[in-house]
């Protein structure tokens, strides 16, 4: 946990370097210096490691730091749920070295000023924070923000996240304006006209529990609408990214769009490839999120999409809430669960061990691909000159996640007590040890 000065050199020795983007999977020693990767060499062959702090990575995997392009850090405005410091501490504990923060803060991040404030050193972040700007003023879906200003302040994409842009004309303008600045538009695809009063997925479980359910069409119809708009704007190279895809129909629409050569990408959250609406159980508010847990058929479609490559990234939609906020009637409970500390352990346990996805590809979905998706230069790979963002983990360690031990201010997770595979030993963010745990 102890952060050390950024200009201290760190030599990682004896580990197996897995850098899917660079096509490397072999034993290598790595020297980090001044926040960058200085040297990569065969074991014992680093030339410039004198005086560097040595990390013994024998038996461990050394990989590019994980990147989560969908988190809610709640600051400014809701620091009782989470702060940038606590959220990124959880990120580091989960192996993440960079996160993209959603703009549904209070106030909404729709200005360069807030975007800069979130990245200021005073926030005490343990991982790089990339703000995502609001697409429209106050995320009200009416007036487009100043994307040039947001971008120059460091925003990496625009979205109205929990307030999907329903008006065709506004969404078209947003896509076109973002394309002019080379920014991605992220859409939380939910036609909210179809989901009034709904608190879970529409299906036998919602009927049994007497809860109003969201149909699959409420997601897929908006994805289809957005894809149509992107195709109309094809010449502008507009980039649509579908957040937390949860239905087979939405994934099919993305697949079709990609075949047509459109810049449409998507992410899937671990809870959507692991859980179904049956996990709501007896009104468990830790199984309430938006989009909701879907049917087994949709869950299986998410796994299939990850395995066959149509899914571009695993993103957690880390959404911390205070305990008392979740201890209410199911329909009144806020949406969302934490996810930063469980993403790697669940992905390795299920995608790699259970579904036999090669380790390198799993890691790529958690680093190289999301980095490429939002254009994070020098991240998601570990070659000389790239950022010294590294996760070092024991791929064989099986352990049990305990929410009470979370670094996040919040404990709202359905994965409390779940078996994880792969334990993070060190997370290094731009050359600083942001997290460490002894075996």
């Amino acid at each position: 946990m102890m952060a050390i000065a950024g200009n201290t050199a760190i030599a990682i020795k004896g580990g197996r370097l897995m850098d899917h983007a660079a096509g490397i999977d072999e034993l290598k020693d790595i020297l980090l210096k001044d926040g960058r990767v200085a040297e990569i060499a065969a074991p014992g062959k680093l030339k410039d490691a004198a005086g560097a702090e040595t990390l013994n990575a024998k038996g461990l995997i050394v990989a590019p730091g994980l990147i989560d392009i969908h988190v809610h850090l709640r600051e400014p405005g809701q620091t009782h749920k989470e702060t940038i410091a606590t959220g990124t501490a959880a990120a580091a504990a989960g192996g993440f070295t960079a996160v993209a923060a959603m703009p549904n803060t209070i106030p909404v991040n729709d200005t360069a000023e807030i975007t800069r404030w979130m990245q200021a050193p005073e926030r005490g972040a343990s991982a790089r924070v990339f703000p995502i700007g609001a697409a429209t003023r106050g995320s009200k879906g009416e007036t487009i923000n100043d994307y040039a200003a947001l971008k120059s302040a460091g925003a990496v994409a625009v979205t109205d996240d929990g307030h999907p842009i329903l008006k065709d004309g506004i969404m078209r303008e947003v896509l076109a304006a973002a394309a002019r600045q080379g920014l991605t538009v992220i859409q939380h695809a939910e036609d909210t006209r179809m989901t009034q009063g709904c608190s879970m997925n529409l299906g036998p479980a919602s009927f049994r529990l007497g809860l109003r359910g969201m149909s699959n069409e409420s997601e897929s119809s908006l994805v289809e609408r957005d894809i149509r708009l992107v195709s109309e704007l094809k010449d502008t190279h507009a980039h649509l990214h579908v957040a937390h895809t949860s239905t087979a129909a939405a994934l099919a629409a993305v697949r079709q769009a990609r075949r047509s050569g459109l810049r449409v990408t998507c992410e899937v959250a671990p809870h959507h490839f692991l859980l179904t609406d049956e996990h709501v159980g007896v009104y468990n508010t830790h199984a309430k999120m938006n989009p909701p847990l879907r049917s087994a058929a949709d869950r299986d479609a998410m796994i299939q999409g990850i395995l066959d490559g149509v899914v571009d990234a695993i993103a957690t939609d880390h959404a911390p809430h205070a305990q008392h906020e979740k201890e209410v009637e199911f329909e009144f409970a806020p949406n969302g669960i934490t996810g930063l500390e469980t993403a790697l352990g669940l992905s390795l346990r299920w995608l790699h061990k259970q579904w036999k996805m090669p380790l390198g590809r799993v890691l790529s979905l958690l680093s190289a691909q999301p980095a490429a998706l939002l254009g994070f230069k020098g991240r998601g790979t570990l070659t000389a000159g790239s950022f010294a963002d590294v996760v070092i983990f024991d791929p064989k360690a099986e352990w049990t996640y305990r929410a009470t031990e979370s670094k996040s201010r919040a404990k709202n997770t359905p994965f409390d007590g779940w078996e994880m595979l792969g334990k993070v030993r060190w997370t290094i963010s731009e050359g600083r040890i942001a997290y460490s745990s002894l075996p």
Partner: protein
Amino acid sequence: MLSVMDLSVEVVSHLLKRATELEKQNPLERDRILSKRRIALLFYESSTRTRTSFELAAKALGVDTTLVSSLSSSIEKGESLKDTGLTLRALGAEAIILRHPSSGSAWLLEESTRLPVINAGDGMHEHPTQALLDLRTLLKHLRPQKSGLTAGVKADTLAGVTVTIAGDILHSRVARSNMLLLPRLGARVLLCGPKQLLPEMAAQSGPGIEIERDFEAAMQQSQAIMMLRIQAERLAGLQIDLEEYMAAYQLTGQRLAALAPTALVMHPGPIIRGMEITAGVADGPQSAILEQVTHGLAIRMAVMERALTAKGGRA
């Protein structure tokens, strides 16, 4: 007691027997069974039948009751359900009877307070004591010989009986509790209503549940017909053509005479005369509507007795 699924057939049988014993008992003796014990009635929704029935049943056992309703309490000031429950517990409540517009609220209250909670209707989810009193009504008429009222019930007590539940199934907690309880005693449940008020997935709620959209076909097969009102307060923008609805699903004297001349007519109330049921049928000789209300008293005595005396405290 949060759901009928919390009750084994043995427990249902015990409750039915105790209801009958308590009903017959000398009021002056019965009054001592739970003398000076404390039960809070926590009502977030308006209610005539259920509230009065629980209150009278409690008093018949000697229980001290207090009524907290959402419109005349700190709930109006924003106090949460959990905090309200903890406050009632601190005041000495040993069990809470909850009526609430949110599905699952009874479960939340029990988790928060660790007191026995009797679900008196949670949103669109369940109303278990209503299903028990409906069962008692059915047994009285359909099994008068080896009456479950005194002998209890088994998994086949209602074998060969078909019960139609017709109307606004989607929004009905009474329908959910009945469709989950009656098949466990051998009955076949036919759900009947238009697609908007009865989604196909309702049939997947459990075994012994089927959908029959044709009301007249359902009536012809049934020994009992439970009518439900359209829950205007829960329609959430759903548009129902009432003329069309009444033409297809209203229980009229004509239909009853032609298709189910001996069937028992039931309704959990409140009834909307001239909508789902005609006044003539509601007041007619086949109607058990007011009898259902009376059975409620006996059932709720048994349920409260169990809540305050059962091992482990769970209702």
